[in-house]
């Protein structure tokens, strides 16, 4: 709101209308469109029973296999055709497999200059001992960025479909606060007490050592997410919300994706134009080495861990 103009004059401007529309403080349809509140319809139990009876009668008439001979013939043919189709499909696939080249043959088409370049110059150019993570995060960083975006969009879709309004959730919790959580299970709690720290540390280890040892952002993030799910199951949503609520989730996820985008685009632009890269590669084998691999691994790990936990929380409860 502008301080220079009086309130009444400001309300006439376009900016006021735009920001009112953006914040959604005024319902544009309220008072301008003729609307009637919906009434709750009640159907008597007798009519429901009648309808169910009708349904069953129709089903009996249509699927009357004993009298309807056409249907019986169709069912037999259907079963035979299904089995034939399965056999033919399996045969075709096995027939194709016999034409595939043997694994380990030096003249195979996959044994070309691309893989040779990765194997021979990978360590020198990316600075990571783990050649797989060096390959997918530097030579093929664009693909991995697309995959991370897919994860982001998938959680957005699940949120749109399964998110329940906060007010409704709170109402349900006051009625039955143990609805979404298991009963106080001593075995589960004891197991989680021992296992959760180990799983978390293992996940963080996999993420941070992505360029040195097997693993990387995706696997480490999946382990972290699985650990979070175990924690939620043992201790309930209320305790988890103390350190992982919707605010933390949104901040972590969007920051990770944006950081990945910034680092990635810096790398693509330099690589595509043949400009010298200013991120030091470090000594291979050290924890601070590998150029852009370590920060990107952390970003991917955060993204995946948030996605895994959000999927579970949305499926189970309808909110984070």
């Amino acid at each position: 709101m502008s301080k220079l103009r009086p309130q009444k004059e400001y309300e006439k401007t376009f900016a006021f209308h735009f920001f009112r529309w953006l914040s959604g403080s005024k319902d544009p349809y309220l008072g301008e469109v003729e609307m009637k509140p919906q009434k709750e319809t009640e159907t008597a139990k007798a009519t429901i029973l009648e309808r169910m009876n009708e349904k069953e009668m129709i089903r009996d008439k249509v699927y009357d296999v004993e009298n309807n001979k056409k249907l019986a013939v169709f069912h037999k043919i259907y079963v035979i055709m299904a089995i034939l189709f399965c056999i033919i499909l399996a045969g075709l696939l096995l027939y194709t497999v016999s034409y595939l080249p043997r694994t380990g043959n030096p003249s195979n088409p996959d044994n070309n200059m691309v893989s040779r370049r990765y194997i021979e110059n990978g360590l020198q150019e990316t600075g990571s001992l783990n050649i797989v993570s060096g390959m997918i995060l530097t030579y093929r960083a664009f693909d991995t960025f697309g995959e991370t975006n897919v994860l982001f969009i998938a959680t957005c879709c699940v949120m749109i479909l399964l998110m329940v309004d906060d007010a409704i959730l709170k109402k349900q919790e006051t009625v039955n606060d143990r609805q979404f959580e298991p009963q106080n299970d001593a075995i589960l709690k004891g197991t989680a007490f021992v296992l959760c720290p180990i799983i978390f540390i293992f996940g963080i280890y996999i993420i941070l050592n992505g360029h040195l040892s097997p693993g990387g952002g995706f696997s480490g993030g999946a382990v972290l997410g699985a650990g979070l799910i175990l924690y939620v199951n043992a201790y309930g949503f209320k305790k988890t919300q103390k350190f992982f609520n919707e605010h933390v989730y949104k901040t972590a996820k969007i920051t990770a994706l944006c950081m990945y985008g910034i680092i990635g685009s810096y790398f693509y632009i330099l690589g595509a134009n043949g400009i010298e890269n200013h991120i030091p590669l470090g000594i291979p084998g050290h924890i601070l080495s590998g150029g852009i691999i370590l920060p990107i691994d952390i970003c991917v790990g955060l993204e995946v861990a948030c996605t895994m936990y959000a999927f579970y929380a949305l499926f189970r409860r309808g909110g984070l």
Partner: protein
Amino acid sequence: MTLFQCILMGFLIVCAISVSFSRNLLNSILIYMSYSLIMSIIWVCLQSPDLAITEAAVGAGVTSILFFSTLKKIHAIQIEKEKSDQKEDEGIE
């Protein structure tokens, strides 16, 4: 080593076939879980530990948990405890 892998492959085929033939949805999810676990051991034998970690975390862990919660949502899993809880709720309301 090859004998061990052959046994694992046999388990894999048995699991894959029995998933489609089991009538109980809960059973088929459990079999699917064990399928993923065997698959992750096979990945280790094939010298790709990256995939083994991911398979164990995603295939055997998260995916089957999501299946479980979905089954609970559509009331395909019925536990006696739940039934008694529901009765109590109905009585209160």
